[in-house]
């Protein structure tokens, strides 16, 4: 019973082993699909390295799976601002990812100033800030500041999007 419970608990890590295995298989299959004539100037060719890496990944995947099934566990990373005593707080992470995805979808159409401000505001909200107005002011100042900073300082034109002509 106890053993079963611990096995179930380690399941998430088996997903990692599966990921390693999948990447290993993809690397090997991709390399195998290359067709290169043998060349005197390059006896190693572009396939050798992928085969070695794919092999390494597959071996790691198998060993990791065995290790996990035997009760081995990766040690989650600590840090100054990390409290590992409570489980992952998905209610913070998922809205964060949402803000991030929203930015990806919007950046090319509405431009950096708007999408970047939304990204900052949304992230701050996801992280628990409830001072909406102050957050919004900071977000707009940051995105406007970086827009002009990149344009004037680095010579990079971030997309202006909807505000084309205004900025």
């Amino acid at each position: 019973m106890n053993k079963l419970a611990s096995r179930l608990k380690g399941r998430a890590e088996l997903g990692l082993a599966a990921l390693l295995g999948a990447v290993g298989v993809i690397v090997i299959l991709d390399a195998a699909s290359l067709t290169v004539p043998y060349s005197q100037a390059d006896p190693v060719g572009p396939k050798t390295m992928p085969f070695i890496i794919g092999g390494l990944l597959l071996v790691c995947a198998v060993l990791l799976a065995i290790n996990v099934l035997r009760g081995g566990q990766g040690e989650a990373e600590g840090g100054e601002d990390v409290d590992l005593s409570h489980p992952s707080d998905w209610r913070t992470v998922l809205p964060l990812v949402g803000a991030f995805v929203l930015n990806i979808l919007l950046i090319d159409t509405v431009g950096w100033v708007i999408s970047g401000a939304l990204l900052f505001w949304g992230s701050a909200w996801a992280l628990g800030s409830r001072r909406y107005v102050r957050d919004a002011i900071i977000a707009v100042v940051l995105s406007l500041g970086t827009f002009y900073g990149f344009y004037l300082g680095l010579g990079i034109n971030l997309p202006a999007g909807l505000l084309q002509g205004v900025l």
Partner: protein
Amino acid sequence: METFDLLMQGFSTAATPMNLLYAFIGVLLGTAVGVLPGIGPAMAVALLLPVTYALEPTSAFIMFAGIYYGGMFGGSTTSILLNTPGESATVITAIEGHKMAKAGRAAQALATAAIGSFVAGTIGTALLVAFTPMVVDFAVSLGSPSYLAIMVLALLAVTAVLGASKLRGFASLGLGLAIGLVGADKITGQQRLVFGQPLLVDGLDIVVVAVAIFAVGEALWIAAHLRRKPLSTIPVGRPWMGKQDWKRSWKPWLRGTAYGYPFGALPAGGAEVPTFLSYVTEKKLSKHPEEFGHGAIEGVAGPEAANNASAAGTLTPMLALGLPTNATAAVMLAAFTQYGIQPGPLLFDSEPELVWALIASLFIGNTLLLLINLPLAPVWAKLLQIPRPYLYAGILFFATLGAYAVNLQAFDLVLLLVLGALGFAMRRFGLPVLPLILGVILGPRVEEELRQSLQLSAGDPAGLFSEPIAVGTYILVALVLLLPLAISAFKRFRPQPQGVPAGAESRDEVSAAEARQGATVASGPRETIAGEYQQQHDHKEKP
């Protein structure tokens, strides 16, 4: 005296007003990220990689070097005032430093840390000046097979020696090497792991990978595990030291430097082992051993010096061989590739102005750090009151900006998110980050050297062993891989002797054993510190 002339030229480049300004910005940012929770020098440099599009390399590296050294100074402030060492290198400082602060000697602890860091950083940089040209002279004579061997050693040493689980280290290395494969093969032009996606043909941009792993992955990870209960700082005035404190500090500074530099220069040497060794040494040599565990100033002075000297040591293999041995050096190396500069022994010939200005700026940065850290420590502590939502939202904001600015392609942001999720998963499941980033950076170079070596020998594998240095290095590789196995087998057959009196074993033997095992020797009076160290030593370097 040629080196001296070059260094003086470096000073004249580094001391131009613009470069001084960048050095100043660098040390300010570095101290800030060292103090702030959740941001470390590697993340800061990664987030600043976009400046490489506009800044000339010399100025950019002067700023990065300031961030690197500044992070070391700032890290000690939080470990003393808060007892929250963000990096494994400052775990030891926190042990005595925080006790000193609680006993009302925070000012002295901060002072000995800052002055010790300055002394060690300066001596370490001087050693860098002395040794790096020698390493370069040696390295220039090496051929592809030796290079290949050295890079393999560096990769394996970082993977197998650091971190709690070797298996997970190798998994991380494999993922990094696979990421490094993406794109068109340089020699044949064959597309690998491109999946018909034209945006992948040029490979994954190192900026995107570094920002994803160090900034996005870390920010998401912290967001998932925010520490809700606030801490409080120990109030502190301006750091200062009395005569007695100076007397007790200067020797530990020098001994710490002597430990730190060589370990920093070794692949996988890192800062953990020398800080630990320094602590043990000071405890043993101290005239006040009873104060250890209750706030002994030697226990702050020595490890803090070792920490900074190892930072200087790290730059030796990075500049001379193009081998990064910690995360910050790896990201700085990524910046070199952004400029199309090939790091390695030829760097000293091709870009002497850049290299020597960078080294000179280390001296300048160190001095600036002492000047801004001693009087301003209470101000820096105020940074800790920045509300978290702004801090981590800001990290995500600038990470997105940096990754997007590479190509102005929203596709890069998709990659950023995917690799950020990978970074999150790696932290969740205990995969160390450093092997991955080294795999991404060194993987393509390993392949290049491998192909060159075998091209010279027309495909005969014996070509890999055609140089004595290569053979020697492979023997070292074998030792790195097999020694831990041998030790654990040996331990299984012979249980640990109990109650060995301190000093019964010769110092060298002990140090060597500790170094090999990432310091797990616990006997006699070392037990407590080794235990404490063990508990905390798996903290990885703050990215």
